[in-house]
């Protein structure tokens, strides 16, 4: 029997009290419910990490794969069944570190999925090491002399690789976050939302107050369709951090371009004429 409720039920979590993930998962639930999604048609996917536990805590179909490998599995699930709403929730280590290569190339593929990166600038699950977005000089138990690497700029990378929907938000700004999540899910193509969030246990620098003080909304005068302006905004990260849709562009999706998927019939349900096998075999005669 199917459960006909359209509510995305929540389960007990294993996150620390005050974790930014609470805000994000509540916004995700609200966004999906406001979009009137049936949880049976939603597939929540993740890699491994604290953020990647999101699919465990919200009732829908779920896929918790390997660290760094959420995107390849997610785009393929969407290719197999385009009727699924595929949403990836995972951390910045998973998305930009271990999965960096998949991040670049799945932007290029432009499969219609949403990618919500819970970006707390630190590794939480392994208890506090530098992440790709940690600031230079950030001291941890491993980076004892401070991180020496240039912080990864996911928005710049996404724009450069050709993403058609690039946004940033903050876990402490639920009104904006719900709005951006809904727009990302509705966007036809790969949509990235980099969500700044505090790690209350391990990151004592980039705290709730730190972000709260710095983030500001892009106002109506900002044109997210202007790529050069978007690059300017993507470079802005310091005393002031812009949030909202940084860049947006309509693009043909993977499904639009692939002849097999263009029929609109989900791949997994497509029937194959069995006489084809004999025909193909005859080509070798």
């Amino acid at each position, binding site marked *: 029997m199917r459960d006909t409720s359209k509510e995305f039920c929540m389960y007990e979590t294993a996150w620390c009290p005050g974790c930014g993930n609470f805000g994000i998962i509540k916004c995700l639930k609200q966004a999906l419910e406001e979009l009137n999604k049936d949880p049976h048609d939603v597939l929540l996917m993740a890699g491994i990490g604290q953020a990647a536990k999101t699919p465990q805590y919200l009732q829908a179909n779920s896929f918790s794969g390997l660290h760094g490998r959420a995107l390849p599995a997610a785009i393929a699930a969407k290719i*197999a069944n385009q009727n699924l709403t595929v949403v990836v929730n995972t951390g910045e280590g998973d998305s930009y570190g271990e999965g960096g290569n998949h991040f670049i190339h799945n932007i290029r593929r432009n499969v219609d999925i949403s990618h919500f990166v819970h970006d707390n600038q630190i590794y939480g699950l392994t208890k506090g090491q530098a992440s790709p977005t940690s600031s230079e000089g950030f001291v941890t138990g491993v980076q004892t002399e401070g991180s020496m690497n240039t912080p990864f700029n996911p928005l710049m990378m996404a724009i450069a690789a050709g993403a058609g929907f690039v946004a940033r938000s903050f876990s402490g700004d639920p009104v904006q976050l719900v709005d951006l999540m809904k727009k990302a899910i509705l966007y036809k193509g790969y949509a990235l939302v980099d969500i700044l969030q505090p790690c209350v246990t391990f990151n004592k620098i980039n705290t709730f107050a730190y972000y709260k003080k710095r983030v500001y909304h892009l106002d109506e005068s900002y044109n997210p369709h202007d790529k050069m302006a978007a690059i300017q905004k993507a470079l802005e990260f310091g005393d002031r951090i812009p949030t909202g849709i940084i860049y947006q562009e309509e693009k043909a999706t993977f499904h639009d371009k692939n002849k097999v998927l263009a029929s609109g019939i989900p791949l997994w349900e497509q029937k194959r004429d069995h006489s084809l096998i004999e025909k193909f*075999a005859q080509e070798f005669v």
Partner: protein
Amino acid sequence: MYNILLGGAAGQGVDTTGNILEKLLKQAGYQVFSMKDVMSRVRGGHNFTLIRFGPEKIDSHSYNLDGIVAFNEETIGLHKDKLKPNGFILCDSSFAVEGPNMTKIAMNEMAKKIGNPKVVGSIAIGAILKSFGENLQHIESVYQHAVKLEYLEQNIEAVKQGFDSVIKHHEHQTSSYAKWMLLTGNQAIGLGAIAAGLKFYSAYPMSPSISIMEYLAEKMTEAGIVVEQAEDEIAAINMAIGASFAGAKAMTGTSGGGFSLMVEALGLSGIAEIPLIVANIQRPGPATGLPTRTEQSDLSFMVSASQGEFPRMIIAVKNHEDAFYQTIRAFNMAAKYQIPVMILSDQYLADSSAVVEPFDANRIKLYQEPEPLFEGEYLRYKLTEDGISPRLIPGTNRGFVAADSDEHDEYGKIIECADMRIKQMDKRFLKLKKLELELQEPEFVGAANYDVLLIGWGSTYGPIKEAIQLLHETSGRKFAALLFGDVYPLPTKLLKEKVKQAKDVINIEQNATGQLARLIRETTSIACTASILKYDGRQISGEEIAAAVLKEVVK
């Protein structure tokens, strides 16, 4: 049965000429087995194709040459020792090499006059057809598919001129294989996958597995397959798993180096119980090894690849026909037991062509996953009597489907409780009990009164079969062989029975350490008494096996 070698530098047309000649010989009615020996370079070096043909069944290649077609002088120097006393060497009249076996034609000059220096190969084809008593009946139909229309006329003219340049040495032998198929091992795997219902194939280009993807890409629109080139092999296998989870039959293919990158995800397929097909077309390792050559050295690795323990199956394909049917079976076993199934082949089978009876539609039986029956809430990892949990596809509105790389409960949610961990591990391994009943025992060939038992797996099937025949012609002892296709889990029933009668048990493998022998010993305590191991990147032939058995073992 005749063996012809076509040799030259990369870029001289050895491969193309071989591909056309093997089709023409098949159209003439012959069995054909054509093997490629290619260096890992686009220009220069030395490449050759060995074409064996005749009216009788051919299982493998042979290096006892009836003829050499030399596109450069180097070819003659490299291979003339393998030429039979009455064999011929066909080459351009400008070559400085002299000898009783030489058939020299002014091929380069003729090609120039025809207006295309690249038709030299077609002149050679004409000469070979004439020499072996064939006619020109099939040249139009074969060339139409082999060359661009603008070059068709030049090539046909070249074949005719080559044909008229030599005299007939052999009579045509009547044979009836013209209506059979001529295909490579990788094409057989590709077609098998389509027959099995493949919907999604993701891979990263790698020799010698790439031709599976090329074949599928040629057919993707007509057959309704999404073929996606991944950014790396890790993406390739994770994509296949994602697609399979969402209901599309999915496969990835690679060679050893790529498979090395895939191993973590192999375990994901194992613990999340997502059907997955991985084809590993082996080449010599370690690391980059010999990229365009052959070896059987990944068996031990694949048996244990990935951290932790989970059920898996490995099928080594034995020849071109087997590659087709076993690929279908791999899909069936993966779907039925919700496990990763690996198809193990190698460069020798991948790139060689053989004549195969047209595939029999009645032999294609696809496993139909039963409609999941459940009451109340759907449990993806429900504990069942045979360990197989009803599989629901997400989005079918009957329940929530969860997949988890963490240990999980019946619902699919992450757990750490000791009791459920044991239950889920046991459930996964329980599936093997049922699977083992479906294992295919090795094929037994040879004399009933044998006392020497040869053991092989995968692509040495043809060469070992031929060796048994050769050994009976030259030795007074009696020989038999067990030829394994299913290698993991290892079927042991026939093995235990057949070793009892043998004084010598000899494993023949294309690796340096005897990996099947080790697996047999680990599984059954049966120890082989001698080994014939080849790891120079070249496939062992029936003649080599027979000679090695006589020299090293039987004495």
